[in-house]
């Protein structure tokens, strides 16, 4: 913990995003192609912050209709009833299966929202050049990447409910417009997680110079216990 940690970019090296091989780029401006797998090399994911912001904002916009518009419409003997995602959670809760209600609530409401908040937080701290809690922020990123797929749960639930309950004219279930927006939120946040480059979290430390920072005294106002 004495000298600045030696990163590949500081040593003038690049690791291939596809195969992980460490190599010396042809030049700093044009790194060239990986000698092992032939992929195009880049020191950091291309325009990572701009792209991730764009996807996060698009997903946040889709999140609103995803929760307001109905995802399912149930027609029973001529009368139709519409259900939103929260409505589905309430239905599961009142019909006695509260563990499932909890799973759907977490996967469909809290996880997408948590992902949007987490990605925004990561982007803002990277843009401000924050050097605090890099390890925790990397862990947060890893969690966002791992958990993202589980939000697709509600899309599968709706698909198989629609596919199975087709007993015209007795009862039938149709998908609502909310499903599309909800699926869009999941897909957009998954792509956003993959365009964000976690190495940017650590670049601030290398740029700041010699101290690897947890006890840096120049910035006491950045202490994270404010909330």
């Amino acid at each position, binding site marked *: 913990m004495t000298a600045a*940690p*030696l*990163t*590949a970019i500081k*040593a003038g*090296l*690049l*690791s291939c995003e*596809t*195969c*992980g*091989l460490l*190599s*010396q780029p*042809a*030049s700093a401006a044009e*790194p060239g*192609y990986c*000698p*092992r*797998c*032939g*992929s195009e090399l880049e020191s950091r994911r291309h325009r990572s912050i701009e792209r991730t912001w764009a996807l996060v904002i698009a997903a946040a916009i889709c999140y609103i209709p995803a929760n307001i518009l109905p995802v399912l419409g149930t027609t029973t003997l001529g009368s139709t009833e519409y259900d939103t995602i929260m409505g*589905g959670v309430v*239905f*599961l809760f009142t*019909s006695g*299966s509260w563990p*499932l209600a909890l*799973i759907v609530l977490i996967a469909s409401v809290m996880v997408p929202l948590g992902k949007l908040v987490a990605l925004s937080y990561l982007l803002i701290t990277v843009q401000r050049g924050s050097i605090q809690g*890099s*390890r925790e922020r*990397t862990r947060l*990123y*890893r969690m966002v990447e791992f958990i993202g*797929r589980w939000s*697709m*749960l*509600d*899309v*599968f*639930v709706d*698909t*198989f*409910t*629609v*596919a*199975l*309950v087709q*007993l015209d004219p007795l*009862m039938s279930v*149709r*998908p609502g417009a909310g*499903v*599309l927006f909800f*699926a*869009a939120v999941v897909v957009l946040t998954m792509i956003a997680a*993959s365009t964000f480059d*976690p190495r940017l979290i*650590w670049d601030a430390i290398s740029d700041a110079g010699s101290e690897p920072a947890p006890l840096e005294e120049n910035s006491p106002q950045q202490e994270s216990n404010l909330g």
Partner: protein
Amino acid sequence: MTSVACHECDLLQVLPDLPVAGKATCCRCGCTLATRPADPIERPLALGLAALLVLVVANTTPLMGLSAVGRHASTTIIGGAYQMWHEGQEVTAVIVAFCAVIAPAGYLLFLLIVLFAVRRPPAPGWVGGMLRWAERTRPWAMTEVMMLGIMVALIKIADLAKVEAGIGMLAIGVLMLLFPAILSSVDTEELWARVAWHEPDPASDPVAERVFASNPMPDLEPDLQKADLDGRPESANSETPSGRSSS
């Protein structure tokens, strides 16, 4: 001993010699840098072939059936996507079909082709392309999410009518167990090490102006920190550094 840059924090490190079932993690951010599964080619090949068979069963047999007042309905995975398309939700139908059928099947096929090809190294260059596609489709293969989704749907519908689980659902349950087993038995670095290097040959390369990065590179190893070894040795005698048996 090889040096790598952590793909999550870019720190240069030297990989220690891994014992079988060992794992090297980044000493700064803690992300996994390398693993050493016991049998990195034959075991995922066996599991992958089994998963391919189960995948065919899962996609051809009914997932679940429903009966109410003398009427019966059943559905398959692709039937679910088709019904969504039929009801005017074309984009959602495509997303469901991709995550439920195309991505798992694609991942398995690409991986199996790679595993078959690298049994006699060096495998030709196109195998590297296949491996790249396998890695790209992997995050979109959502078998376990689909399994939970089917169960939730089943319980929701069970309140309205009599439902029964089909063979397809059982098959998806098996797939849900096989996929993580395949993922943990594959060693991507070992696979790349068995693929022939991309040759910078201007005569046959369609993109003649390609510039390649160079390798070997400056020798840094004495200056580098050592990655953390998170070893869970299977037996006491494998604790001695044995070195990776790869070329």
